[in-house]
C-alpha cells in the first residue's frame, strides 16, 4: 500500500498525479503540492535525521522554515546540496534525498552512543575539553568533532548551475502572503503603488493554505493582485535580511523545484530590494515546551500537524496527544480530529480554559493542570507520561505516536528587529512584538500579535490608514482564545530548548552557573539558537529558562540580537555570477589579442592581464625567454606593452601649482614639451607613487602613475581638489584607457622609430632625453616621450587605443632589421633591477624617499603633501635601511627575495632583499635590498639568510645601479 498516512480527500495536493522520489535509497511516491516532509509523513516515515551533537533520532517537527530537525541532502554529485529543510523542499519527480549526520545508517547510528555520554558533552564542552594540549586540536579533536558532530556534506565538484542577482525598487514591499500580507498588498496596489510581495512558500496564502473555508477569498485576492500591472508576486522567495534604509536581501528559488534548471534558467536569484515602505506580514511561529525527551520522532508542533492534515492531506500519526498551554493549539488539534485522526487526549498545564470546555464537548479527554513528564519510544514515539502538576497523583502512560506540542506563538519579529524596530513584551502573548519603527516599516497581522484570519486581514488592509475599505475581509471565524505562559516541565531529564543544537534547559542553567548569564553569552556558550533554524521554535523558551535561573522576568533577559540570515541561504546565491574568473572584472590592453597570437604567457597584475614573456620554440625554459628578451633590449631593441600605466590628464590655470603641491619635486618650472620624473608621498611622509609627468601646454599636463596605483593616485588628486583646495582651477580626467602605450627600448630604438615617426624631429638635439612631442605613425596620431625604465635609450609611444595594433605593428616592422624583440613584464623587471629603479617591492608603504635613494627629489622650499610628517625623527633617522645592490659572491648562487641580511656569524637582521633577478648585463644573479648603513656597506660582504628554506648565500653589497650609473645610455 502506498502513502498509508494520506487521507482519503482534502488538501491542496494534486492526487491525480504521482511523483516518485527516494529517501536514503528507498523509493516512495508523493503528489504535486507536497513538500518532501509531507510526502515522507504520508509514507509513514518518522525517523528522518540525527541530531547535531548527540545523534539522537529525530523526526519532522514543523511544517515550515523553522524546522530544526528534518534536514536532508538533496540531489547527488555536483548538485548535492546539504541542510535542505524537508519542510520547505517542494517535491519534484525524481527527487533524491538523503538523511545526514549518521553512520552507517539512519536507524543504526553508531554515534548515537554519544547520547549515553551526554553529561560529558555539556554546554561549553568544546572550550573545556579541548583546551590542551594545543597540538591535539588540529590533529585529533577537530577531525573527530567534524566527523561526529555535523550537518550535511557539501558537493565537492563545482556547481553546474548558474545563479543570478538582481536589484529591484518598489514603493511597498510586503513580506508574507497570509491574510494580512495579501490584504496589505491589495490596498497598496489599489492605491497605484509599485508593490512587491515576497512569499517563502511555493504557494501564496500562508496560513490560508490550511484553511479551505477561506479559499475563495484567497483566490480573489490573488486574482486582484495579478490584475494590477505594478504588483510583482514572488513566491519561493525568502527575505533573509533587513538592512539600513529599507534595503532587504531575498533569495528566489527559481529552479529548486525542478530536478535540474531548464536551459538558461538560473537556479536561484539573489534580490536586493530597495523599498520606500516595508510591510512585514511574516506571521507567527509556534514554540515548543521543554520537557524530558521532547525530541523524539513523532513529536511535532500542533500547527504543523494541522498543516499536514489540512494542506497536504496527511495524518502525521495514528493516535495523537496534545500538550499545550493555549487555545489556538486546541483549534489545530480539533482539525486533526476532524481529519479522522484517533485522539488520545489533551494535556494542559492550565487548570481551566475555554479550549478544554470545547475539547470535552468533542469527547476529548483533557488532563488539566497537568504536564508531560517524559516520552517513550526509540526511533519513533510510542507514548507519553502525564502527571498532575505539583507532583501529586500517579503518572498516566498515554499511548500515542504523535505528540502535538504548543507553548504559544511568537510573532515573527526577526526582520522588524533587524530593521531596528525595538521589541516590546506582550503579556497577553508572552512574546515579543514589534514596537514603533523609526523606518517606513509596518508589521501587520500575526507578525504583531493580531491573530485570527479576519482580524489579521483587517490589520493588513489598514496599514496605509486609507483605502482599506475597498478590500473585502474574509469571514470571521474567530480569534483563538487565551494562553498562560508555560516554558518548562520541572522534572529531571533531557528537555531540549534547541533541538538542532542539542541544547537542553540544564545546559542553559549550567551556562548561568559558570558565569555566562547574559543572553548573548549563554547563546555562545551553549550554541543555543545558533543553528540553521536560528532558534525559531525554542529561542524564547531558552531565554525563559535562563530568566528563571537568574530570578528575572523573561522580557528583562531578552533575546539574542536578530541578524541576517533569518533563514539559510546557499553560497551559490551569494556568489551569484562572480565565480572563477568572473570574481572581478578583467582589464585588457588594446594589444591583448596580439599578445595571445604571439603565444605570450600572461600574468595577473591587479585586474590587468599582462604578458609575462613570449616563449619561442628555441627557449629551453622560461628563464631563457626572459633573458633573451632582456638581452635584445640591452644589445639591440625591444618593445613592451606599457598601456597599463596610469594616465591622468591634468588641466587648468592652477595645474602646475597643483602638481607642485602633490609631488616632492617641482613641475611649475617644467618647460612645455618636456617630461620629468616625479615622486609623490602619502600624508605620513612615506613614498606613495612615482611616474613621469609631461607638460603639453602651459595649463595642460599628462601625468603617468604606476600601473598599480592608477586608481589610488586619481582618488588622492580628487580628494585634495574636492576637499582641501577647492579654490584651485584644475580638471582631472583618467585617460588610462584612451592611450595605449609601448616602450621601444635599446640602442637601436631611435633608429627603429625614426623610420616611421612623421612630423617630429627625433634627433638628439631636437628631442633629447625627457623630451615629449607629437607626431604620426602611418597616419595614426602618436605622443612620443623620450623616457627610459631600462636604462637604455628608449621612447614611450602613446597612441589612441584604437590605433595600438597599427602602431605596434609598424614599430615591429621598422625594427625587424635590428632584430626587434617584444618583451614582457619579467624582462621589464629584470631590466629595472639592473638599472636600480625602484617599484612596488621597494615602494612598499614603509620606505621614505631617502630610503630608496631618491632624497634629492625632495625640494628644499615649498610645501607638498607629506612634507611635514616626512621630517619626523623616525623617518629621518640615518640608521634606517637604505637601498643597496647585491651580488652573490659565488656568481652562480641564486638569490631569494625576502631573505634577511645578516653579518657572518650573527642572527641580527640588518635588512632584507626586496627584488632579485638573473642579470644579462652581469654574470649570475643580482638583487636590490634595504639595508642599515646603506652605501657605507658597499664593497662589504654579508649573508643573505632564508631560514624557512635553511638557505644562506654570501653576498657582496654594491651600488644598486648595476648598469650605466652615469646615465650615458639614456642620453646617447
Amino acid at each position, binding site marked *: 500500500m502506498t502513502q498509508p498516512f494520506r487521507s482519503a480527500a482534502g488538501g491542496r495536493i494534486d492526487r491525480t498525479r504521482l511523483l516518485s522520489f527516494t529517501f536514503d535509497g528507498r523509493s516512495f511516491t508523493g503528489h504535486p503540492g507536497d513538500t518532501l516532509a509531507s510526502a515522507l509523513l504520508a509514507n509513514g516515515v518518522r525517523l528522518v535525521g540525527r541530531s547535531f551533537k548527540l545523534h539522537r533520532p529525530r523526526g519532522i517537527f514543523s511544517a515550515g522554515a523553522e524546522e530544526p530537525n528534518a534536514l536532508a541532502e538533496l540531489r547527488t554529485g555536483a548538485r548535492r546540496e546539504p541542510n535542505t529543510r524537508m519542510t520547505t523542499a517542494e517535491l519534484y519527480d525524481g527527487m533524491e534525498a538523503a538523511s545526514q549526520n549518521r553512520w552507517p545508517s539512519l536507524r543504526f547510528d553508531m554515534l548515537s552512543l554519544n547520547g549515553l555520554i551526554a553529561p560529558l558533552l555539556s554546554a561549553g564542552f568544546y572550550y573545556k575539553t579541548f583546551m590542551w594540549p594545543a597540538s591535539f586540536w588540529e590533529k585529533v579533536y577537530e577531525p573527530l568533532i567534524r566527523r561526529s558532530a555535523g550537518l550535511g556534506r557539501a558537493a565537492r565538484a563545482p556547481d553546474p548551475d548558474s545563479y543570478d542577482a538582481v536589484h529591484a525598487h518598489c514603493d511597498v514591499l510586503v513580506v508574507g502572503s497570509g491574510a494580512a500580507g495579501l490584504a496589505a498588498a491589495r490596498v497598496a496596489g489599489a492605491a497605484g503603488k509599485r508593490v512587491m510581495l515576497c512569499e517563502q512558500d511555493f504557494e501564496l496564502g500562508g496560513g490560508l493554505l490550511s484553511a479551505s473555508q477561506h479559499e475563495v477569498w484567497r483566490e480573489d485576492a490573488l486574482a486582484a493582485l495579478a490584475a494590477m500591472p505594478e504588483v510583482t508576486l514572488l513566491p519561493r522567495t525568502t527575505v533573509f535580511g533587513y538592512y539600513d534604509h529599507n534595503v532587504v536581501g531575498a533569495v528566489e528559488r527559481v529552479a529548486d523545484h525542478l530536478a535540474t534548471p531548464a536551459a538558461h534558467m538560473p537556479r536561484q536569484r539573489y534580490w536586493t530590494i530597495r523599498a520606500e515602505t516595508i510591510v512585514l506580514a511574516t506571521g507567527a511561529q509556534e514554540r515548543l515546551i521543554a520537557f524530558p525527551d521532547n525530541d523524539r520522532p513523532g513529536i511535532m508542533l500542533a500547527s504543523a500537524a494541522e498543516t499536514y492534515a489540512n494542506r497536504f492531506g496527511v495524518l502525521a500519526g495514528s493516535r495523537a496527544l496534545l500538550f499545550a498551554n493555549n487555545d489556538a493549539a486546541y483549534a489545530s488539534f480539533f482539525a486533526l480530529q476532524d481529519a479522522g485522526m484517533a485522539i488520545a487526549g489533551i494535556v494542559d498545564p492550565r487548570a481551566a480554559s475555554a479550549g478544554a470546555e470545547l475539547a470535552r464537548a468533542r469527547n476529548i479527554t483533557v488532563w488539566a493542570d497537568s504536564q508531560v513528564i517524559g516520552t517513550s519510544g526509540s526511533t519513533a514515539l510510542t507514548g507519553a507520561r502525564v502527571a498532575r502538576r505539583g507532583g501529586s497523583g500517579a503518572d498516566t502512560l498515554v499511548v500515542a505516536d504523535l505528540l502535538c506540542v504548543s507553548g504559544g506563538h511568537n510573532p515573527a519579529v526577526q526582520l522588524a528587529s533587524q530593521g531596528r524596530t525595538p521589541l516590546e513584551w506582550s503579556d497577553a502573548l508572552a512574546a515579543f512584538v514589534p514596537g514603533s519603527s523609526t523606518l517606513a516599516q509596518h508589521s501587520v497581522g500575526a507578525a504583531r500579535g493580531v491573530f485570527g484570519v479576519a482580524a489579521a486581514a483587517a490589520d493588513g488592509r489598514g496599514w496605509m490608514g486609507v483605502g482599506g475599505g475597498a478590500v473585502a475581509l474574509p469571514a470571521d471565524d474567530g480569534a483563538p482564545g487565551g494562553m498562560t505562559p508555560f516554558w518548562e516541565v520541572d522534572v529531571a531529564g533531557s528537555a531540549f530548548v534547541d533541538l538542532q543544537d542539542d541544547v537542553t534547559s540544564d545546559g542553559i542553567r549550567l551556562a548561568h552557573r559558570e558565569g555566562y548569564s547574559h543572553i548573548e553569552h549563554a547563546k555562545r556558550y551553549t550554541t543555543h539558537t545558533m543553528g540553521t533554524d536560528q532558534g525559531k521554535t525554542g529561542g524564547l523558551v531558552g531565554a525563559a529558562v535562563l530568566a528563571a535561573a537568574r530570578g528575572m522576568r523573561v522580557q528583562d533577559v531578552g533575546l539574542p540580537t536578530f541578524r541576517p540570515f533569518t533563514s539559510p541561504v546557499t553560497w551559490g546565491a551569494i556568489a551569484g555570477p562572480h565565480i572563477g574568473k568572473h570574481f572581478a572584472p578583467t582589464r585588457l590592453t588594446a594589444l591583448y589579442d596580439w599578445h595571445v597570437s604571439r603565444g605570450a604567457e600572461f600574468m595577473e597584475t591587479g585586474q*590587468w592581464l599582462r604578458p609575462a614573456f613570449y616563449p619561442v620554440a628555441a627557449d629551453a625554459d622560461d628563464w631563457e625567454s626572459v633573458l633573451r628578451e632582456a638581452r635584445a633590449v640591452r644589445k639591440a631593441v625591444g618593445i613592451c606593452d606599457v598601456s597599463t600605466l596610469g594616465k591622468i590628464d591634468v588641466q587648468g590655470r592652477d595645474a602646475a601649482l597643483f602638481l607642485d603641491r602633490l609631488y616632492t619635486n617641482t613641475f611649475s618650472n617644467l618647460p612645455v614639451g618636456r617630461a620629468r620624473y616625479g615622486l609623490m608621498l602619502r600624508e605620513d611622509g612615506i613614498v606613495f607613487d612615482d611616474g613621469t609627468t609631461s607638460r603639453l601646454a602651459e595649463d595642460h599636463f599628462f601625468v603617468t602613475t604606476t600601473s598599480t596605483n592608477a586608481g589610488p593616485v586619481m582618488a588622492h588628486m580628487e580628494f585634495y581638489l574636492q576637499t582641501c583646495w577647492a579654490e584651485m582651477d584644475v580638471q582631472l580626467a583618467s585617460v588610462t584607457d584612451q592611450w595605449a602605450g609601448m616602450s621601444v627600448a635599446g640602442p637601436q630604438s631611435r633608429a627603429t622609430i625614426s623610420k616611421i615617426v612623421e612630423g617630429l624631429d627625433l634627433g638628439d638635439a631636437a628631442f633629447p632625453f625627457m623630451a615629449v612631442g607629437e607626431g604620426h605613425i602611418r597616419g595614426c596620431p602618436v605622443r612620443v616621450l623620450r623616457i627610459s625604465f631600462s636604462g637604455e635609450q628608449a621612447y614611450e609611444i602613446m597612441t589612441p587605443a584604437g590605433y595600438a595594433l597599427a602602431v605596434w605593428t609598424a614599430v615591429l616592422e621598422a625594427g625587424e632589421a635590428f632584430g626587434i624583440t617584444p618583451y614582457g613584464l619579467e624582462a621589464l623587471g629584470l631590466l629595472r633591477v639592473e638599472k636600480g629603479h625602484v617599484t612596488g617591492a621597494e615602494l612598499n608603504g614603509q620606505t621614505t624617499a631617502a630610503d630608496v635613494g631618491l632624497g634629492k627629489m625632495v625640494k628644499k622650499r615649498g610645501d607638498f603633501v607629506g612634507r611635514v610628517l616626512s621630517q619626523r625623527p623616525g623617518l629621518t633617522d640615518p640608521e634606517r635601511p637604505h637601498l643597496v645592490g647585491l651580488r652573490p659572491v659565488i656568481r652562480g648562487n641564486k638569490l631569494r627575495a625576502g631573505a634577511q641580511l645578516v653579518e657572518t656569524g650573527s642572527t641580527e637582521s640588518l635588512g632584507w632583499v626586496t627584488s632579485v633577478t638573473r642579470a644579462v648585463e652581469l654574470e649570475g644573479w643580482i638583487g636590490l635590498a634595504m639595508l642599515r648603513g646603506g652605501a657605507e656597506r658597499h664593497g662589504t660582504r654579508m649573508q643573505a639568510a632564508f631560514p624557512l628554506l635553511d638557505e644562506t648565500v654570501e653576498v657582496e653589497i654594491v651600488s644598486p645601479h648595476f648598469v650605466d650609473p652615469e646615465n650615458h645610455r639614456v642620453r646617447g
Partner: protein
Amino acid sequence: MSVVEPLSPLAGVLVAGRFGATGEDAVGISERRYDLVQVFARAGRSGDVVAAMQTRFGVALPGPGREGRAPMLAALWIQPDAWLLVAPRGPEGELARTAKQACGDAASVVDQTHGRCVIGLSGARAAWVLGKLCRIDLHPRAFGPGQVAVTPVGGLSCIVHQRDDAPSYDLVIFATFARSFVASLRHAAEETGYRID
C-alpha cells in the same frame, strides 16, 4: 586624416547572432561607436562653456542626470560642470578640437573616443537585464528617455544613458574593461535571451 581605421576593443568579440533562452523576450546588445569628448568648465566659467556649446553645436548643456540633445550630438551630464559629448564618428580628434576651439580657456577638453566604449542594450526586457548589474531604479516613473546616471554597472564605473522608451540604453564604460563587461552583460541576458546586432 587617419589612414587606419581604429579598432574597437570588442573587435571579434561581439559576433552577431541569437543567444541564450529562446522566446519573445530577447534583448539587443550591440556596440555603438561614437566620438566621445569630455568637456570640463574651468573654475567660474560654466556660463561661458554653456554659451559656447550652444553657439557651436546648438546643444543646451544639461543639469544633473540629464542629456542635452542637438541634431548631431548629445551632451550628457557626468559631474558638476562637466559633460560628455557623444556624436557620430568623425575624423580622428576633430570633435575634441572643435569643442576646444569653441570654448577656449573656458574649458578643459579631453578626447575619450578610444578611452570609453559604448554598449547598447535595448528591448522590452532591457531594464530587467540591466537591473541585474546596476542598482539604480529603472522604472519608467524613475528613469526615462533623456536621463543619465553615473553609477557602477557590473562593478564598473559606467554612464547609463537612456535613449528612448523601448527602452534603449547606452552604457558608457572604460574601454579596457569592455570585454569583461560584455561577458557580464551576456550572463545577465542568458535568461531572457539576446541578439547581438
